[in-house]
């Protein structure tokens, strides 16, 4: 059984903190997830919302950004939907590896790589209508653990 929490925010960066707060509070209703995992989800969702808002700004859209949380005991899925122009995550210039001499030349490009390492599943579904970013954390099953 899962429960759904939905939030729509104006496409302004001042509302990203509200999205984080709602998702963190909603995720905290699932006691099976540790604070560390919820912190990771919080940052990933924040990055997705920031990108969504930027997409709206670029597209000149007044629509709101939709954040949908699907909460279950063993899985939390957050979908961030924008109505911007859509983007290809593969075309985003990522920051170089830490060892690269020019690492400090890159002050942006950290958002999408961060999302990918923070959560267990990421999906970027782009269309002409906008982009859906899906972020999933799952609870690992440990051998011998009580259900």
């Amino acid at each position: 059984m899962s429960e759904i929490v939905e939030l729509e925010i104006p496409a302004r960066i001042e509302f990203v903190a509200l999205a984080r707060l709602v998702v963190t509070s909603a995720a905290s209703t699932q006691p099976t997830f540790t604070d560390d995992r919820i912190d990771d989800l919080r940052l990933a969702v924040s990055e997705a919302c920031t990108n969504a808002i930027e997409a709206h700004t670029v597209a000149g859209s007044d629509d709101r950004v939709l954040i949908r949380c699907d909460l279950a005991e063993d899985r939390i899925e957050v979908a961030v939907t924008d109505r911007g122009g859509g983007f290809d995550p593969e075309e985003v210039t990522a920051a170089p590896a830490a060892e690269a001499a020019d690492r400090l030349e890159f002050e942006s490009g950290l958002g999408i790589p961060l999302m990918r390492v923070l959560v267990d599943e990421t999906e970027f579904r782009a269309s002409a209508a906008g982009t859906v970013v899906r972020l999933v954390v799952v609870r690992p099953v440990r051998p011998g653990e009580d259900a």
Partner: protein
Amino acid sequence: MLSVVELRRDGWWVVVASGELDVASAPDLRRAVVSAVADGARQVVIDLTGVDFIDSFGLGVVIGAVKRVRAHEGRLAVVVADGPVRRAFELTGLDRVLELRAGVDEVVAGPA
């Protein structure tokens, strides 16, 4: 919300940030560092001990601050507590290229 306070200590400029350092608030930290460097700061500590959240924009401002101080042949250290902020620096590999410390005291009292 983010608050930014600037202190002077033993020749160091300490920029203390508290709260959430994200896309909306990161410009406040950038302004503080830019202003300190313009006023002659060459030994700078950014104290993020009181920051409980940092996003990619916050990390970007820290990178920009390091570059700005180094361009003036200065030194910048970043103080972070264990937890999600340190984890963000580690996940992006920035812990290996920045001077990350656990407390302001060890920076200010250490060798120049």
